């Protein structure tokens, strides 16, 4: 095992480019490139120049090749990966694969024989060396969980536009302070509009303005009636809504690192999230509150209406998010340490 290269095997990069796992893999590949040469492998298809990286398809059938290959979007059989289209071993130090992608791990042994295989995951518990990009606070209960393999918490770099704080979204018109509810998640069916949980919140806090983003549209509510409606076209739209909110309730946080929750915290806006979700660690870490039922959701929203509580959560949450998701240099350091820990003897001189 030698070399300074790092391979990244990612199916979501091309299959679901907007997913959180794809975002995580892009962020980690970018950070890795500060430490080593990085090759990004994707299943099937043709080579693609994708920003900073040239994607190298694995199992793509070469025009002159008679066998092997795979359908675009699917990893090839490991035996086929050694066909003429497979990459030559390049002295890889480590391979990053995605959690929940069973086809990638066998290929890692073919692409990078002898390299350490690190699973990019939400949190600990996968049973293999891993890089956890989701945040889980260090508590006695969690550290006492039996783990069979080392897990390095790396975080990510999650960019937000600082100017979003200074701007007011045109769609808000005369809406003053408001609670922001994010009601859906990319890749999941849009729930019945508005969802039951949202209806309860709108009824319980009828005196307050509540802005609900579901299905790419934002609606401002007051007294159980819609007072403004506008589309959320871009990420900047969402950032402006987050940055001006008193608090953010994310009913369906992202499944890997809860990107919207991280972004809210980076704007200094506390969150309320479902217990057990990828964002629950952020809440437990001090950035917000977690709920497991509609009644608890209403309690959380009520607590967030208290300025003192909100201020305390915002301060702690912002510090946490900036440390783990807003510090690109820190990410490189943490990632370097994780790679060194996984491959101690292959550390370049």
């Amino acid at each position, binding site marked *: 095992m030698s070399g300074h290269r790092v391979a990244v095997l990612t199916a979501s990069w091309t299959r679901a480019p907007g*997913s*959180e796992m794809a975002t995580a893999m892009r962020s980690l590949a970018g950070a890795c490139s500060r430490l080593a040469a990085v090759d990004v492998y994707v299943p099937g298809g043709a080579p693609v120049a994708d920003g900073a990286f040239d994607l190298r398809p694995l199992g793509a059938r070469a025009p002159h090749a008679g066998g092997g290959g795979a359908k675009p979007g699917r990893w090839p059989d490991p035996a086929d990966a050694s066909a003429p289209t497979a990459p030559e071993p390049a002295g890889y130090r480590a391979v990053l694969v995605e959690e929940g992608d069973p086809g990638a791990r066998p290929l890692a042994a073919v692409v990078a024989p002898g390299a350490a295989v690190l699973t990019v995951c939400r949190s600990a518990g996968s049973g293999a060396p891993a890089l956890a990009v989701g945040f889980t606070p260090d508590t006695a209960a969690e550290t006492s969980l039996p783990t069979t393999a080392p897990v390095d918490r790396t975080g990510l770099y999650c960019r937000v536009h600082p100017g979003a704080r200074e701007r007011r979204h045109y769609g808000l018109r005369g809406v003053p302070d408001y609670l922001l509810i994010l009601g859906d998640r990319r890749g999941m069916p849009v729930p019945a509009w508005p969802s039951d949980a949202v209806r309860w919140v709108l009824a319980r806090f009828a005196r307050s303005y509540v802005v609900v983003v579901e299905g790419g549209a934002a609606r401002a509510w*007051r007294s*159980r*009636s*819609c007072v403004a409606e506008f589309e959320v076209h871009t990420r900047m739209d969402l950032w402006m809504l987050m940055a001006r909110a008193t608090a953010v309730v994310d009913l369906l946080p992202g*499944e*890997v690192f809860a990107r919207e929750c991280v972004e809210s915290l980076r704007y200094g806006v506390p969150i309320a999230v479902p217990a057990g979700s990828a964002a629950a660690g952020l809440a437990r870490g001090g950035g917000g509150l977690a709920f*497991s039922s509609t009644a608890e959701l209403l309690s959380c929203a009520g607590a967030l209406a208290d300025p003192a509580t909100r201020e305390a959560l915002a301060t702690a949450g912002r510090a946490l998010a900036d440390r783990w998701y807003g510090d690109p240099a820190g990410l490189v350091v943490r990632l370097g340490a994780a790679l060194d820990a996984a491959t101690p003897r292959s550390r370049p001189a």
Partner: protein
Amino acid sequence: MTGATGEEQARPPSGVGASTAPGRTVPAAPRLLSQRADPQGLPSPVRDADEIASLHAKFARLVSGAQGEVADVAGAAGPAGTGGAGGVRAKVRARVAAVARADAGADREFMGDLVRAVAALAERMDDVTSRIGNLELLVQDVVDRVSEDLTRVHEALGTLDAPRWPDGPGTGA
């Protein structure tokens, strides 16, 4: 603004819930309103409108101007008791002035009534507007209080359901 009328009508009414567990009925989420319940800003009083103010000002000028004209016509009639052709002309002028004065007086009286009626309507309209504004505030207050009380009752009774929140990591695909 779009209401939720169509979508709302497709849902069961509040209180008729779907049962998610044997022996337990979960209340349906509160329905939303199809019209705005927050009061819009009231229009400015009609009494202070430019049109009404202008009407009063013009009528005042008309009345004061008409009084001046009558005085002029009466003055042009010359001193009483003068004889000859001038006396006849003076009598004719005086007679014409008297007739004109009578017509102008009737017109002014009618216009005065009209102006007073417009002022009364404007005042009544402002009163009605004020009452509607108060009713809008009351409706909003009722909606807010009933909504809060509804959820508080369900919270106190423990009848709010615990929905299944997704908690597992996905594949990212």
